[in-house]
């Protein structure tokens, strides 16, 4: 089966545990204002690749994975190509490689369930804690994320909640508190990661002729990030 990928990064160390290859899938239904990969939105762009070719490529890096590393599939929204992903993850699991899914959690259907059958870890990008903001800033629904989390809970798949902290959008202490509350409702959540919004994707937007909605927004200060991180209970750090 073939899928569309945006790019392949052989060394990833910030998307899941250990040293990982990261596959960026092409195409995303969300339109997050903070998106730093607008070039992954278009479903028609990217490069077509079949699972065997991709598997072969990934296997060349297995010596680097060590005890914790493996493969992370990110995007784009990888679950928009769930059948492809299910086949890839199945093959990776057969090869004994750890699989990690980096998703918004906005899609759930039988194909996605097949993906989850072969998923070791989920990085769930939990963008906002209330439906109004969630829709306003992503054009998707928080309910879907809740539903996805419930599915992960049912399957007991270790999950990291991740949130990009954007000044004036979700950088209040209350916002982080709500995220922690969400975590507490699901025992599958093992870790919470707060990532500072970064502004260096403006060039990408310019190249695509798209207005970058946050072009005047600054990266949150180190102090701010430390303060917010301190609100996260120890067991999620």
């Amino acid at each position: 089966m073939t899928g569309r990928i945006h790019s392949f990064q052989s060394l990833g160390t910030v998307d899941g545990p250990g040293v990982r290859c990261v596959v960026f899938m092409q195409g995303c239904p969300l339109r997050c204002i903070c998106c730093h990969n607008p070039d992954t939105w278009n479903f028609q762009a990217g490069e077509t690749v079949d699972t065997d070719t991709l598997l072969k490529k990934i296997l060349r890096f297995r010596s680097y994975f060590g005890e914790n590393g493996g493969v992370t599939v990110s995007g784009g929204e990888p679950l928009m190509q769930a059948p492809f992903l299910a086949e890839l993850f199945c093959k990776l699991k057969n090869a004994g490689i750890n699989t990690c899914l980096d998703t918004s959690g906005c899609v759930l259907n039988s194909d996605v369930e097949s993906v989850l059958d072969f998923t070791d870890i989920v990085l769930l990008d939990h963008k906002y804690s209330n439906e109004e903001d969630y829709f306003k800033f992503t054009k998707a629904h928080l309910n879907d994320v809740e539903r996805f989390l419930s599915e992960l809970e049912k399957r007991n798949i270790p999950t990291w909640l991740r949130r990009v902290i954007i000044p004036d959008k979700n950088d209040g202490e209350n916002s982080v508190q709500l995220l922690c509350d969400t975590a507490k409702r699901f025992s599958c959540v093992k870790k919470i990661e707060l990532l500072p919004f970064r502004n260096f994707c403006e060039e990408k937007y310019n190249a695509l002729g798209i207005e970058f909605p946050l072009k005047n927004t600054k990266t949150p200060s180190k102090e701010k990030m430390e303060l917010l991180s301190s609100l996260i209970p120890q067991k999620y750090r």
Partner: protein
Amino acid sequence: MKFEQWNGFIEGDWQDGVDVRDFIDKNYTPYTGDGSFLKGATERTKKALNELERLKKLEQERGGVLSVDTSTVSSLCNYKPGYLTDEDIIVGLQTDEPLKRGVNPFGGIRMARSACEAYGYKLSDKIEEYFTYRTTHNDGVFRVYTDEMKAARHCALLTGLPDAYGRGRIIGDYRRVALYGIDYLIKQKENDKKKVGENYMDVENIRLLEELYQQITFLGLLKKMALSYGYDISKPASTAKEAIQWTYFAYLAANKEQNGAAMSFGRTSTFFDVYIERDLKNGILDETGAQELIDDLVLKLRCARHLRTPEYNELFGGDPMWITESIGGMNLNHKTLVTKSSFRILNTLYNLGPAPEPNLTVLWSHALPKEFKKFCAKVSCDTDAIQYENDDLMRTRFGDDYAIACCVSAMKVGKQMQFFGARTNLAKLLLLALNGGVDNMFGTRIGPQMEPMNDGILDYSKVMERFNIYLSWLCKLYVNTMNCIHYMHDKYAYEKTQMALHDTDVSRKMAFGVAGLSVITDSLSAIKYAKVKPICDENGIIVDFETVGDFPKYGNDDDRVDEIAQDMLVRVHNELKKTPAYRGAKHSLSALTITSNVMYGKKTGATPDGRKKGEPFAPGANPMHNREHNGALASLNSVSKLPYSTTSDGISNTFSIIPDALGKTDAERVDNLVSILDGYFLNNAHHINVNVMNRETLLDAYDHPEKYPNLTIRVSGYAVNFCKLSREQQREVIMRTFHTVM
């Protein structure tokens, strides 16, 4: 045989003849714990460090040379004893004052003269006159160089040849002096000499007899030199302090006698550890004292200097000495050779701050203790001062008592020596072949003369056919040139001290090298997979190329192009082997450039891969800058495919990554770096320099050097103080690929 200094050591073969390896094997204590036992610098160490820092600053202010003794020829006993401070624990300097440089004209008087003049000094008339009566290595070589050799040298097809200074890359087994004492070593050499004397007197044996005579003389001088510092080293060392001192004296003597390009220290830390453990057990030393000994040794090593010309610095930037110390590894029984002293020597980078020398080299094995791996990775993240080489790869070829000469070149300590051969420029050779024997930068006609291939789009198989003719021609010329150089070096600048600390029956290799590997690889890939059309000047000489279409590039784990690089190394090695090397040496090959990749690029025209005329090459075996599109591991994979079997003199790779791309926390970064090193070496890669830093740091240091007096970075097989590089070399380092986060 027995010495009272050996009390407490486990007996073995090492007592019946020189066998340091057996001594270590029987007596060392492996350590699998972490670095928490380590101690910081003592007040005395800090004072000594301050003094060295003060002198280094002064040296920098004076244009890179603090002072020169222009009226003494450097040798073992020609200077009065020198000290860094009046509280030195390990004593001995090359001249009578710290950082003062001596002159060593045995390699070539012209080089000594112009080096003095470059820094505003004048070589004394006395030395000038003396050397009118004496043949130098350089005189000898130029008496026999053919016109073709001179032409290849002139147009920089062969560059960095050791024909005007000490060839270096020879590692004396300096430990022998500590373990056995000078008198025993002299006795052994006298026995050897007697035995050789029983043979038929052919050229080989007569030469060896004279060399043994010189070795014995210089062992005597070494003893005398030590005596001038108040130490009698005729007997073995009896304490850790003495073991370090005796060993250092031997190294110092070699450094006074020879101005070799690379003067490695060997593999000493686990050897010293045996003495340190004994002293700790006997209660005459504690951890603070043990660390202080190692710290002071390293301070003395950091004082080492040779006087070089600006042209030399252009090739080997940053005033390097390559005082390479090999650390760790496993032994042949799968037991780790890591000891507490392996940690102690790395700890000097904390106690004394990061610095390029000594060139600390970790021999990495998958089986190294986990805590040691993590400690090394932490040192890399914190200091950017160490390099790694694949012990699992080297141990099968060199046993478990080898050390690294220069940057990446393994040799059995005291049993193997090498004839250093600099390198040839493969990218230039390709251009020469395409132009049918005309160098398009110098206009030199050299090699087989043919029609230039300037008629339309280049055909890969025809280009390869042509290239092979030129490669074959060049390799013969290269070996012959090297033979001349090393015959003359043996004759006029023989390494008496260092060879006295080798077995008399030594094995030799001739270490050839290539530069521009990634440039020729990508260029051939362009010719094969894209359309490359030569562009000529008015005389029909190809001066540029028009390359249309994409082509696979080395550094992306793409076999289509990586195979070209692999094949190239095999091809070069096979061609070299066709011409016998001087003194029965075995031909070996390296992909290592030091900083000469900048100079090589400067002297090479535009290439089919899109590199412009004069642009720097990538260093060593590195992919060309910023042509890696699949991330860091893909780049590492490409390099790891290069065959160590044909390139056993070393395959150098310099890897720079920004801290954020290695992990979010310090602990993650350490673990991830360990995984990367494990993976890289499991793939049979040979060497890696690791820099964990942001490009912005280098940019800031480029503009404000005063803010970064000790900024150390790994370049190509060695570490260098960034601020000591030329502006050009600095720019090239900044241009290199820094692996980042997407």
